[in-house]
């Protein structure tokens, strides 16, 4: 049931350490590190180095990540992490049969900018447009960075944690004006099941775990 096979994980991890040893060691790059969890490797890279690292991951014969599976972002606002956003890339090598997750953390919250990957993998085109639409991440060098999924003229970035679930505006047809008008949403927000945090260790599902409730 594992996605990536354990053997290939160790091989890939040591290859990453060997090829990017300079990047990982440099003291001015506290953002560069390798995380192995649940038999998957996450490679965290400083934003400035992303394009170079990705090109190496695609072209080095030891990696050969020929397919970019997915690009997305995560908003860590509710988890109170800084920096707030992470842009996540999932890579897959059909030649070597391994997977890698690359994460970057655009620092400047006023302009969330990361380099575009369209020149390396054409599949990045729509994925970056979606991440821009949903999170407002700007992909520098993208040939056509438009909104993709939301309505024409939509404002805001719906998957950000400070965007309400029921949205901000709703559209209806105004009989008097004989046109579509935008009004604030009339939906009452409701939450049937609260988000519940138990004490650490509860989610490990061991029989002895204490069950102290911490409700947010």
């Amino acid at each position: 049931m594992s996605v990536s096979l354990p053997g290939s994980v160790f091989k890939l991890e040591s290859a990453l350490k060997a090829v990017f040893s300079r990047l990982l060691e440099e003291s001015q790059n506290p953002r560069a590190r390798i995380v192995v969890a649940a038999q998957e490797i996450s490679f965290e890279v400083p934003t400035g180095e992303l394009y170079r690292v990705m090109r190496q991951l695609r072209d080095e014969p030891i990696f050969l990540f020929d397919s970019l599976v997915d690009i997305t972002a995560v908003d860590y606002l509710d988890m109170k992490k800084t920096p707030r956003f992470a842009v996540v890339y999932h890579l897959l090598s059909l030649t070597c049969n391994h997977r890698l997750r690359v994460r970057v953390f655009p620092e400047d919250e006023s302009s969330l900018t990361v380099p575009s990957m369209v020149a390396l993998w054409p599949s990045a085109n729509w994925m970056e447009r979606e991440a821009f639409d949903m999170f407002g991440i700007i992909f520098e060098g993208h040939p056509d960075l438009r909104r993709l999924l939301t309505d024409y003229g939509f404002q805001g970035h719906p998957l950000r944690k400070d965007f309400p679930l029921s949205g901000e505006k709703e559209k209806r047809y105004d009989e008097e004006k004989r046109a579509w008008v935008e009004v604030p949403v009339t939906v009452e927000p409701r939450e049937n099941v609260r988000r519940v945090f138990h004490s650490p260790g509860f989610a490990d599902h061991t029989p002895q775990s204490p069950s102290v409730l911490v409700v947010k």
Partner: protein
Amino acid sequence: MSEFHHYELNFGPQHPSTHGVLRLLLELDGEVVVRADPHIGMLHRGTEKLVEHKTYLQGLLYMERLDYMSMMGNQHAFCLAVEKLLNIEVPERAQFIRTLFDELGRITNHLLWVGTCALDLGAMTVFLYCTQERETIFDIFEAASGARMHTGYYRPGGVSRDLPDTMPRYEKTPLRTPDALARMNEHRHGSLLDFIAAFIRQLPARIDEIETLLTDNRIWKQRTVGIGVISPEKVVAMGGSGPMLRASGVAWDLRKKQPYAAYDQTRFDIPVGKEGDCYDRYLVRIEECRQSVRIVTQCVEWLRHHPGSVMSENHKITPPPRAESKTNMEAMIHRFKLYSEGFSVPAGEVYAAVEQAKGEFGVYLVSDGSNKPYRVKLRTPDFVHLSMLAEMAPGHMISDIVALIGTYDVVFGSVDR
């Protein structure tokens, strides 16, 4: 001399051959497409946002509503992601049941694809043949889970219940003659597995029948051979997966390369195309149906001889039997907690992917340790495939665009999410 200009055509969103709501802006030079700009998102329901506000079990049900043509495969990916974070084992019988239903889902998906794609290209009869087989598969889903389409059958830790020992039968009505009733109930006297076995035995002949309508059909070949050719290098770089990838000659299938469920215990082959055109994609999908028949046959055989549990015994995650909760206090608490608050998943992030009928369906799950997912990203194959359209359409005639959209096997529930 008059001056000729390119003109723009608005194709869709309400057009039967866009398979839902795709708006396509085509720039045309006569009848040849110069530029295509697909506008999607008309069916965007914000599934990813909704799931963030639901417990894991509630969120699971949204997965089927994405790609409503192969429902079970989507749930499978979500379950795999949750199970990976929880680090729990799924009983072997459940693994085989999942494999069985994934493959039945693949057959329904491909049959409906053949039917609708042929309908787009002018062949009416195929669709009727295909839906007939599809109905029987829905009967199987219904017998196992209680619902025909949105089954909610897979659960983190296994499947919701074991396969039933009896198959529901048609009842007598004033309109049904005794002969017709006997014919309809012919294979329904045994267990569900018997019914599946009988269905799967006659399926290859039905696929042959569908093939006689299309494979050597002159019109079908004229509409698909040499249309939408994509080279193996290109399709890999553009993120292709599933039949799109294999039709271009790339032998890649997650069921073989990164096996999950019981695929490493079943024998089947991966069909691969040569030219990478629409016709090859059709042939690959038809052959995949035949391979699915092989897998289903093996699963049925295995399931007949290996009774056992179909749910993990860890009752912090899976509910204890209903009857037990009447007499056992702890079982009652478990049921109550599971269906009100839900189970909590350790903090972390995972990506789990399955080879769904259309390609790689992946779930990227970020958990903050609570009872609801913190972030779910759904990587749907048809979203990626549809993004190839802008690249592949130029140079084709406008009528070939219909064949192209058909060949991606798009379902807008999963493109727009």
